Every structure is written in C-alpha cells, then in structure tokens.
C-alpha cells in the first residue's frame, strides 16, 4: 500500500516536472520574469512618451511587439492551482481570489491580451498622440488585474 502510494507520488511528481508549466516554483518564476520583462518594455515606452525628444518609432514598436509577444505566449499556463502560495524569485503576490473568481480572472487577462495586440498595431503608426492614448488603455488593463489579483504588499 505504501509502496503503491510512493510509486503514484513519484509518477505524479515526474509528470509535474515534465509538463510545460512545471512545478509551482517554476511557474511563479516564469510568471514573475514574464511580468518583469513586460514592465521593462512598458517603462521604455513611457520614458519616450514623457520625453518627446527621445521618442523613437522603432524602439516603441520593438517594445510594443515584445509586450504583445509576452501576452500571446499563453501566460495563463503560469497560473496553475497552488501558485498563489510559494516562492519564485521572491514570494508570490498572486491573490488566492484568482482561483475563486475564474471568470473575472479570464476577463482581465484577455482584456490585457487584446490591449497588448491593439497597442502593437497602433505603435506601427509612429504617432505619439495615438500611441499615448492606447498606451493608457494598455496600462489600465495592467492595473485592473493588479488591483484585483495582486497583493499590494509582498506576502
């Protein structure tokens, strides 16, 4: 009996190790890395919008594409159950509510994906005014998810 459960456990663990999103700590790490990377690109764009003399169409497009690519990479896979507890690069800030309100979570996540892709299109225009407005929409979609599902303070 114990041998059987031991066997089962190791099979489960092995599976977890092989599945795409990995064990909890890995998911949290990838997740934090993904958002850090997104944040880096967001701030590059913001810096250029704040200082028009530094505005470079190519750099904004590159950053916008990077954000869209991250959004389109299937970030949902990094939200496996149990990933509201534990440590990646640091303690996770995902709220447990994320799993209690799957509909809201899905809505916020897809809104972000949509805005990220829309923004990448607008970036192509190279028009700072349009870009700024769309960028506002994009960062609103970040904030909506953070307000609902990210702890204010590290746990």
């Amino acid at each position, binding site marked *: 009996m114990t041998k059987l459960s031991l066997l089962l456990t190791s099979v489960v663990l092995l599976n977890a190790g092989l599945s795409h999103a990995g064990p909890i700590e890995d998911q949290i790490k990838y997740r934090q890395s993904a958002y850090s990377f997104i944040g880096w690109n967001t701030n*590059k764009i913001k810096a*250029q919008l704040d200082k028009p003399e530094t505005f470079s169409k190519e750099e904004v497009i590159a950053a916008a594409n990077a954000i869209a690519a991250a959004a389109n990479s299937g970030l949902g896979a990094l939200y496996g159950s149990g990933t509201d507890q534990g440590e990646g690069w640091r303690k996770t800030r995902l709220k447990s509510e994320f799993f209690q309100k799957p509909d809201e979570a899905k809505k916020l996540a897809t809104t972000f994906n949509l805005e990220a892709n829309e923004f990448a299109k607008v970036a192509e225009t190279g028009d700072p005014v349009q870009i700024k407005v769309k960028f*506002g929409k994009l960062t*609103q979609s970040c904030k909506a998810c953070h307000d609902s599902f990210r702890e204010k303070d590290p746990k």
Partner: protein
Amino acid sequence: MQKQKIQIWDLPIRLFHWLLVITIALSYLTIEIGGIWADWHARLGALALGLIVFRVLWGFFGNKQARFSQFFPTPSRLIQYFKGQWQGLGHSPLGALAVFALLGLTGVVVITGLFANDDITLFGPLYPLIDQSLSDWMTGVHAIAFNALLTVIGLHLLAIFFYWLVKKNNLIKPMLTGKKYLEIHHHTDQTKAEAKPVYFFISIALTLLVVWLTFGNVLTDLLATKPVPQAPSSQSQW
C-alpha cells in the same frame, strides 16, 4: 447679547483647506481611473506635498488661529471641552484632534507616495532612493493610510453635520468666508492675531523649496544609489 462678526479663519487656512479637499478628491479619482491619468496622480501629489508643508510651517509661524500651540488638544483642554467649559475661537479641542489626525494621515499618504510604485508606469519621485521591496512596503502603507484618511474624513463630515443639524451651528460657512458671528463675552484676545507678512513669504518660499527638492529630481540626483531610469539609448546594437 451683542454679536459681532469676527475673523476666525485666515485666507491661507481657507485656501489650504479647500485646495486639499480638491487635491485629495482628484488624487483618488486619477489613481482609480489609471492609464494616462496616473501621471496626474503624481502631479497632484506635488500639490499635496506643498499644501502639507505649508500648513505645518503656518502652524508655527502663521496667524494666531492657525498656530498648533493655540489649539493643541492637551488633556486639560479636552476635559474642559467635555465638561462644556471650553470657550474660544478657532478649533475646539475635539476639532483639533481631527485636525491633527487629518494632517498627520495626509502627511503619511504624501510621504509614502513619494517612494511608492505601481510596477506599471507610476513611480514616486523619490523611488530611486530606496530599494524595490521597501518601495513596495511604502506603497502598501500609502494605501492603508489613505483608507484611514478616508475614515477620518468621514468622521469629520459626520461631526460637521451633527453641529449643523443638532447644535444649529454651521461650520462650513466660516470655512468659506472666514468670518463668524460670535457673542463677544469671551476673553480671547483679539489683538496681535496677525503674523507678519514676511512669515507668510518665508513659509511659501520654504514650501516651494521642498517641492522642488523632491519633484524637481534634485534629491534623487544628489543621493541616488541606483541609476535613475533613463530613456533607452539606441547605442546598443543588438
């Protein structure tokens, strides 16, 4: 009993009060909407910082009814007040408690805001001076202090309605006009209530200095230990 119109709130106090009301309301609105309005949250923060710094200075150097020492709610004053014996112009000892709570909490909100971040595009002007985890903590305190501030504002409003409806004492009008009809039987000394104009200008100058040091990136340039985020350079070739 003869009544006389007496100036109880000077212009700087009244301006401070209503500008702060507007600033807090708009700060709340802009952060809730987010997006392109997030920038305005920080700009309003500069105004809020200026207002608080000015009020503190005015509390030491200002006109009589503005001075903290005049209305500091000492236990003996509070006891007097609850026995119904307190007489005076300006803040009652209970009102004074509210004043210090409101000023203190707004101060905490503003100071933590200077170091706060939202991980998206909003970073307080002093964010570069501390590390991320401390900034995250400050951000948490910023939100908690704001909620506490809202609670005290609620109590403040309740008290004003209570005075209005039950005690038939309209406190709002004097805060707009500065003047109030009062029976002139109390001993409050009306003379020497005015601060010298030079104190007003010194207070304004110090206020502008503080706002410039923080929001003009002067402190961060002097003290930063980590590089201040720079616009990307197209120097990197890959």
